[in-house]
């Protein structure tokens, strides 16, 4: 059991002044799972993401990734460890092209030795070729290959969302964290997203931690679900258990 745990969050709390945005949240994500984090708006889901991915320093609690504590590391080191996230509001490099977005994301895999780059050594050219090929491969997979040389900011919203996921995937992460990836998508695009996540899981063996409001999507692809409400953990379990949980129903009905 403990062997297969990729991410474990224990007693995570985050306080902003007088507001306890996250209060004693604990989660386990096992290798190869799709785990969702749901809850009403303002429940603290994004804040949990920010704490895990190193953008906020949690007030207390522990984040273990592959058994190693992460909560003191800066965000870029956490990303390098293999935990990569998207943002609730898409954050692409808008003035760069689609392919360049994917090249930047592979900074750590690229040959960064200045001398080799300036002299265009064989090794450098091979590495650049690999980086370019991986980028093209992922553009193909998310259906954006025809837009490779367009400015990312000019893509349609749904395409930008897909590009953001591709940009995570080229870093070859172990854990993909998606913050409301279906927000703003139409039903067709949401269905495509659903299929894409399933395929990522099956073909790449990627583990996914998902924040999402679209309940049919969540219930369809999640192995397990965590529910938070007003920063506090409310329930967790399989989609069936969550759908039958009276407290969850109350929290959601209460919101409406």
């Amino acid at each position: 059991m403990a062997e297969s745990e990729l991410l474990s969050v224990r007693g995570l709390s985050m306080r902003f002044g007088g507001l306890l945005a996250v209060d004693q949240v604990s989660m386990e994500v096992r290798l190869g799972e799709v785990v969702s984090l749901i809850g009403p708006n303002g429940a603290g889901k994004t804040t949990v993401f920010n704490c895990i991915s190193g953008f906020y320093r949690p007030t207390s609690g522990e984040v273990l990734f592959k058994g190693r504590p992460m909560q003191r590391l800066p965000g870029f080191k956490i990303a390098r460890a293999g935990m990569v996230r998207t943002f609730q509001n898409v954050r692409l490099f808008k003035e760069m092209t689609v392919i360049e977005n994917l090249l930047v994301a592979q900074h750590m895999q690229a040959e960064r030795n200045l001398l080799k780059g300036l002299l265009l050594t064989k090794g450098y050219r091979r590495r650049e070729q690999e980086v370019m090929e991986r980028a093209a491969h992922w553009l193909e997979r998310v259906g954006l290959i025809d837009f490779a040389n367009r400015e990312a900011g000019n893509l349609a919203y749904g395409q930008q969302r897909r590009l953001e996921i591709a940009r995570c995937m080229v870093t070859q992460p172990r854990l993909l964290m998606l913050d409301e990836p279906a927000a703003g998508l139409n039903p067709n695009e949401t269905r495509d997203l659903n299929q894409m996540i399933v395929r990522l899981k099956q073909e790449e063996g990627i583990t996914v931690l998902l924040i999402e409001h679209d309940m049919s999507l969540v219930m369809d692809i999640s192995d397990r679900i965590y529910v938070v409400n007003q920063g506090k953990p409310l329930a967790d379990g399989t989609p069936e258990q969550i759908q039958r949980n009276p407290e969850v129903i109350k929290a959601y009905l209460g919101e409406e």
Partner: protein
Amino acid sequence: MASQLLHAGFSAGLTFLLGASVLGVELRSQGVNTIVAVEGPMTWLWLGVAVVIVFFHQLFRPRIEALRRRTWGGSRFSLPPLLRNHAQRRLMIALVIGALLLFPFLAERSAIDLATLTLIYVMLGLGLNVVVGLAGLLDLGYVGFYAVGAYTYALLNNYFGFSFWEALPLAGIVTALFGYLLGFPVLRLRGDYLAIVTLGFGEIIRILLNNWTELTGGPNGISRIPKPTLFNLEFSRRADEGNIPFHEFFGIPYDPSYKVMYLYILALLLSLATVYVIYRLMRMPIGRAWEALREDDIACRSLGLNPTGIKLSAFTIGASFAGFAGAFFAARQGFISPESFTFIESAIVLAIVVLGGMGSQLGVILAAIAMTLLPEIAREFNEYRMLLFGLIMVMMMVWRPQGLLPLKRPQMELKRG
């Protein structure tokens, strides 16, 4: 239309009031009295012309602007399609470089000298472009690095007898070190704060050079800095002991213009090297990271890029180009003092980058040429140079905030086949 008329009348009236008070009358002291002297009819005539122009321009402004929009189209003009083709582009570049190499053999000495000065600004502009245009870090103290480069050569020569060629790489390294050191404290700052701190850095360097008299000679500067040699051949009439003058070696009569030509060719080669190195950097992982950082540092961090390291590299590499330019400047002038490195130099170089279009190398080169040639052409207006400069900047900000030739995407293309 009535409101247009009112607006135009108001603008014209304002022009008259301002013009009349500034140009039309003059306070003169006559003994103990101060009298108001009214200017002659010519001044009033010109003022009248100005008022009429302002009136009609304001009256028809909407139409003028509509016309301008139509003729300029999307306003984002790019290079003529001729240059899109790879082979033609190579040929074009080769032709331009050939012409630039031929230039000193055809031009007058003063023109060559001016071209050399222009090339120094090209180097400075390209170097600052790395920091401001690519990495998006507003640096107002760039002249500090230029000074460090110049003094590195001057001091190494003065105290240890280093030649230009020995000192040049060291000037680059020392300046890069200064860039690194400045980078550290300012990494957490952004925007305005960064601008202020770097401004301070430039001033500190200058004041330090001014006051550390024992080492730098203070305001008197350092003189008798030797010119660069060509494989140890000197371009002076008589060489220092051990060296041979260029003209004696080739058995030709002495001509001071050889020196000017040699300096120009050196500046050209240094500039071309700068262009090439930055061209490569822009297409390398580090250059991509600079641009990404300028656009969104949070997204950068989320992908495992370390913003600190990337900013530092921009500062360091950008500074080193100023170091090379500075060493060359010291060699060309033969004399340097802190006065050459005032804030106005930083402002001019920054103006070159902004004018050229943040990030684009060709734009920066064109802007550097414009910024150094215009004041020379407009010599009669010498007193109004800064005014002209300000005017151009304001007009640019109004009409072409993206610069003359904005950075053209993409740097890296996916070629399929």
